[in-house]
């Protein structure tokens, strides 16, 4: 064998029960720059393998005790990347094939020619190089993917913050415009002694102050974790209360609020009364805004429940939800109402429902409009009377 400098993978282990072959290989391969260790049987070979971790193993197939096939299997199971070249006698083709099936890198036949050995070792070294490159590429690729992912996540986080801030600023600017307008109107009214202008200005100031307050309240709700004070709450009573509170807003927008009362006591939820009312009012307010877009707008408040759960429902006869809106409405700052909405109402309602172990979902109604449902756990199994089934049609969108 020609010497050609230090081979790239010089650590070899030769396992053969014939001393002649061991010494011949040691000499010949040692002259080529390999560091050769030898073992006289399979057991010793495996022991040396564990100690030395050679890059390439040459093992005889037929040996007393652990044979070459067994040695191959064990080495491959311990270290799949180690190259194992098996040495077979003439006529051992079956064993050679079997060893290749067991992931031997190659085989050489006895008597071992220098040339055949050189080729086998060269191929083994090439495979080791390829594997090392592949491992490095894979690692590099994983690192690059991780880096790119981190960048995207950071960008998304920034974008989310930016979006939040710009939506918030937009809402605030409109409120500021309302406040400025109010001040101007009051000033003009006083200057020109026109009470009507002053009154209108005062109303603008009040409206926009309330909007600022609501916005602050919504943001506090979203930012803070809250612990609901659970108690049995009659949903029938909440319907009445919601109708009373929202009457003025509905009237101002030309919308009629109707209530469909359940028979008897109706469903009872286990909920924080104040929180649930606030969430429901958000849904009613949205319904009113939707209904205000059509002639003869109306919203209908109702409730339903069974042993699985109870819910408060608002349906409106407005234009219904566009697919784009349906996908985004539960995200903060998405609003279909332009300047009038901060896009926080549904987020607040959804958060409140979640804190109760419930959720808000919606369905576009077949004829016209949409229905939003605030689903809550029932107070008692007995309290949830078998009134109408909660699922009044399959929800097309759900934010559960």
């Amino acid at each position: 064998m020609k010497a050609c400098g230090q081979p790239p993978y010089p650590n070899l282990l030769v396992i053969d029960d014939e001393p002649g072959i061991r010494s011949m290989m040691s000499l010949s391969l040692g002259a080529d720059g390999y560091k050769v260790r030898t073992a006289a049987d399979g057991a010793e070979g495996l022991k040396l393998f564990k100690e030395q971790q050679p890059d390439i193993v040459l093992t005889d197939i037929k040996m007393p005790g652990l044979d070459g096939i067994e040695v191959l299997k064990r080495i491959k199971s311990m270290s799949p990347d180690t190259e194992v070249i098996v040495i077979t006698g003439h006529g051992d083709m079956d064993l050679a094939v079997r060893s290749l099936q067991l992931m031997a890198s190659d085989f050489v036949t006895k008597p071992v020619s220098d040339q055949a050995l050189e080729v086998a070792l060269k191929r083994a070294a090439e495979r080791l190089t390829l594997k090392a490159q592949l491992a490095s590429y894979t690692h590099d690729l994983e690192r690059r993917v991780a880096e790119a992912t981190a960048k995207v996540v950071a960008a998304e986080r920034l974008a989310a913050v930016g979006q939040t801030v710009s939506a918030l600023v937009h809402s605030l600017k409109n409120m500021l415009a309302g406040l400025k307008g109010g001040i101007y109107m009051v000033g003009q009214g006083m200057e020109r002694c026109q009470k009507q202008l002053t009154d209108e200005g005062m109303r603008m100031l009040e409206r926009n102050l309330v909007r600022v307050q609501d916005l602050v309240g919504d943001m506090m709700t979203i930012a803070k974790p809250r612990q609901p004070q659970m108690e049995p709450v009659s949903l029938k009573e909440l319907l009445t209360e919601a109708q009373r509170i929202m009457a003025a807003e509905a009237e101002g927008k030309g919308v009629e609020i109707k209530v469909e009362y359940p028979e008897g006591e109706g469903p009872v939820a286990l909920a924080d009364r104040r929180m649930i009312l606030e969430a429901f009012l958000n849904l009613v307010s949205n319904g009113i805004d939707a209904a205000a877009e059509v002639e003869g707008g109306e919203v209908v408040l109702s409730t339903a429940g069974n042993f699985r759960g109870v819910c408060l429902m608002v349906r409106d006869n407005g234009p219904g939800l566009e697919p784009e809106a349906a996908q985004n409405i539960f995200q903060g700052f998405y609003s279909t109402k332009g300047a009038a909405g901060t896009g926080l109402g549904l987020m607040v309602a959804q958060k409140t429902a979640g804190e109760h172990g419930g959720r808000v979902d919606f369905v576009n109604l077949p004829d016209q409009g949409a229905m939003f449902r605030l689903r809550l756990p029932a107070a008692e199994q007995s309290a949830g009377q078998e009134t109408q089934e909660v699922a009044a049609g399959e929800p097309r969108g759900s934010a559960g």
Partner: protein
Amino acid sequence: MAKRVLVVDDEMDVRTFISTLLDSNGYKVVVAENGEQGWQKFQEKEPDLITLDVMMPKESGIKMYRDIKTNPNFASVPVLVISGLARKTFLHSQKVLDKFKGQSVPEPEGYIEKPPEPDELMGEVKRLIG
């Protein structure tokens, strides 16, 4: 004859504010709540100036603005944008749309960021239509 101004804004308070301001300065005012209604009133009332909000439900001010400025019959009517959007952002969106649609729409004649100051707004209106 009093000049006519079309005020397009989805926010009721802003409409009231701007209308009162214009009215008390001797202008005739027509109002619209969104781009769709604005476009309709624009054609009906033939105003001398439009104050235009950008972010509105239904049809945004961007579409209405481009509809006006790409129509040779209407392009000469000055538009004063009054929006919560920064001027830079609005102009950027217009450039992107120009590229996308292969059009070249001029910048609006005036731009005021919300909330509008009465003096600034009247200054712009007077500059544009006297």
